[in-house]
């Protein structure tokens, strides 16, 4: 069973969001990192880039797969997790804390309401 913290919001494509004021911290879920296997590379956006919700904002790569990361909400990138350059395994080992990917200054926090709750996300992965 993978961990799904109750306080976070989720996207169907397996990103999570933690809200911190008007900033959304984004990562991929425990379930997603487990399905990918050992990550070998994480491609992150540039600070200052602006995305609409659903835009491709990065890529996570394992040996056998590559998966796009979508911006869960619209806004501007304020910070990226540079530690992942050398240690992509942080995403595997600590997906909800040390393995965060990037932070977005939200343009419209109303978009959060359209995201899944922990229960809804659990339901989704149960049905996969």
């Amino acid at each position, binding site marked *: 069973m993978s961990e799904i913290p109750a306080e976070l919001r989720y996207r169907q494509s397996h990103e999570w969001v933690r809200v911190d004021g008007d900033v959304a911290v984004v990562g991929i879920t425990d379930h997603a990192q487990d399905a990918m296997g050992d990550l070998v*590379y994480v491609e992150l956006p540039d600070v200052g880039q602006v995305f609409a919700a659903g835009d491709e904002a990065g890529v996570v790569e394992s040996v056998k797969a590559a998966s796009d990361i979508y911006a869960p909400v619209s806004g501007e990138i304020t910070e990226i997790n540079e530690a992942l350059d050398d240690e*992509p395994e942080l995403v595997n080992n600590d997906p909800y804390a040390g393995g965060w990917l990037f932070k977005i200054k939200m343009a419209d926090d109303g978009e959060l309401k359209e995201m899944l709750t922990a229960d809804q996300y659990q339901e989704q992965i149960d049905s996969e």
Partner: protein
Amino acid sequence: MSNETTLIFQHSRPGRSATAQAPKPVSEDQLSAIPASLRRKNKPGLPEVGELEVVRHYTNLSTKNFAIDKQFYPLGSCTMKYNPRGANRAAMLPGFLNRHPLAPASHSQGYLACLYELQNFLKEVTGMKGVSLAPMAGAQGEFAGVAMIRAYHEARGDDGRTEILIPEAAHGTNPATAVMCGYKVREVPVGKDGDVDLEALKEACGPQTAGLMMTNPSTCGVFERQIEAISKAVHDAGGLLYYDGANLNAILGKVRPGDMGFDVIHMNLHKTFATPHGGGGPGAGPVGVSQRLLDYLPTPMAGLDEESGDYHWIDTDTLPTSIGHLSAFMGNAGVLLRAYFYAMVLGREGMIRVGEYSTLAANYLLKRLEAIGCQAAYPDRRASHEFILTFAKLAKDQHVTALDIAKRLLDYNQHAPTIYFPLLVPECFLIEPTETETKEAMDDFIDAMAKILEEANTDPDTVTQAPFTQPVRRLDDVKAAKELDLVWGE
């Protein structure tokens, strides 16, 4: 098998060289026309070794490879059939090897004659109206094919067509090619029986459809039975039909893509026409087209002046609508000569036998493997020249995966089939024995599989830890990708 693990660079000793091979050094005076600012400051760190060391090193390394010449090599979708040695000798004749690609036609009649006849041969065997031999590989053939589809629509001012349809089981090259040609990709689902979901396809077709790319027999190892309905749906929507010749071996001489309604096809000569795979290339990916795409074929092509009997090049000056050259010269000429040799040896009857006997071999192997307990992915279907097994149950029950079985096969001196393709069948093997393997070779493979299935139950570690007999054990792919070491540095 050799234990050679040192690199050629580690054999290097300053001042050593294969002195018979290089001309004597020129004097600095003779280089004075080259400005000093453009001269290399330090000599490149290339190996300094004698001729015998080089010969021994690369001979020893070669023994670490599995190869068709050594093992049964049932790699699905790759058609690892025997590569006739005679084809290699013929293509390496000095007259062919020393011909400069830009030598005038007057000095190229023999070569052009071979190409011209090969073009006609391929036209006839595929039922197409024109053939260009220019693309250098299957992927480039695909590129040429889709680029021609685009050129066709553009020439008609039909520029609202932005999408290429691709069945979800397709090779990854298909979607990658569509994108290289500036198209969006829409995937079409495949049903439980391995055939395309026709209703979904019809729904996906529309004024935005530039074409459909498909393989038949499909990557599921079965013949797409609704091919005519698919062809009609795509054509009715104004799209064109692309045939990926990856599996042409299955139907060679039996059914022609041109008769199935395809507008453009590519062939993989390194599969169907027995040219070598060479450790991953070179291949050749000629394209064939129906009447309406004739004007767009990639150049150059060989032409014949019936009156004089002279051969010439057809190039963009006489075919300005062509999608153009895809290489500096004329594709992988040496591969084309090998394919020509093969075609001439087989002739008409031989071509028909390719499809027949590759299909016989695959169906035999499938039935025998099912009999020892392997699960077919499409048990109700005939195999084409290849078929799919799934080890999903074994993976779940015993934690022995398709990868494990593949690795264990190496210990039994059998090359593993293609694994984990197509992506939609879990824990799968795609197995293609080809028409050139004896029944005994297939029986040996079946025996090895039976033993491995038994080991999976009685001694699973032997399978999950395999191989044990190869130059290396399983490699750390994660380390390879994370700590990139792509170039030797002392």
